[in-house]
């Protein structure tokens, strides 16, 4: 059990590393997606520990997993996709304006704009 959590923790850290250390803006968005995926995995993985059956109540179920984290994660997945869609559109616009994906270069080139 601990190994699974450690793996998810490592996935999270990989994504976070991409956000803070990589200068490429699309890579930063990848990092954002990865840390989101890690949190979603964590919620679902841990929420499924208390049961053995899917949370569909019409069958002869006795021991369902926790449905609350699942419902929360539906929302979280959608929000993360929306955020990355907007971020990508913005980064395409920035690329067209400056011709670069490097965040420092973009900042440098746009700082001369009035």
């Amino acid at each position, binding site marked *: 059990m601990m*190994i*699974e959590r450690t*793996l*998810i923790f*490592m*996935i999270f850290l*990989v*994504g976070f*590393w*991409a956000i803070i250390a*990589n200068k*490429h803006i*699309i*890579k930063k968005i*990848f*990092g954002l*997606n*990865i840390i989101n*995926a890690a949190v*979603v*995995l964590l919620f*679902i*993985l841990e*929420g*499924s520990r208390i*049961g*053995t*059956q*899917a*949370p*569909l109540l019409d069958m002869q179920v006795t021991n*369902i*997993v926790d449905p609350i984290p*699942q*419902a929360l*994660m*539906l929302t979280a*997945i*959608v929000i993360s*996709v929306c955020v*990355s*869609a907007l971020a*990508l*559109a913005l*980064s*395409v616009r920035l*690329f*067209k304006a400056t011709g670069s*994906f490097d965040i420092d270069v973009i900042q440098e080139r746009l700082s001369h704009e009035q």
Partner: protein
Amino acid sequence: MNLILLVLILALSIFVIASKDLLHSVIALSGISMLSALLFVLLKAPDVAITEAAVGAGISTVIFVWAIRHTRRREKEES
């Protein structure tokens, strides 16, 4: 089984941020989504699995590929 999938996801996520070709990264990212969807099925979360497969592997890949088509595929300028 869970462990294998998680190790694969970890390996793919390292590939996503290490790869020099953005298109490869996008495909790896959609692979992460597919593997997570598989994991969600194993973890008795079919609703989340459907959403992750449709949204994570579907729409977000489309948007990423669109963005890369309109910009540049390689990470660095080719000399």
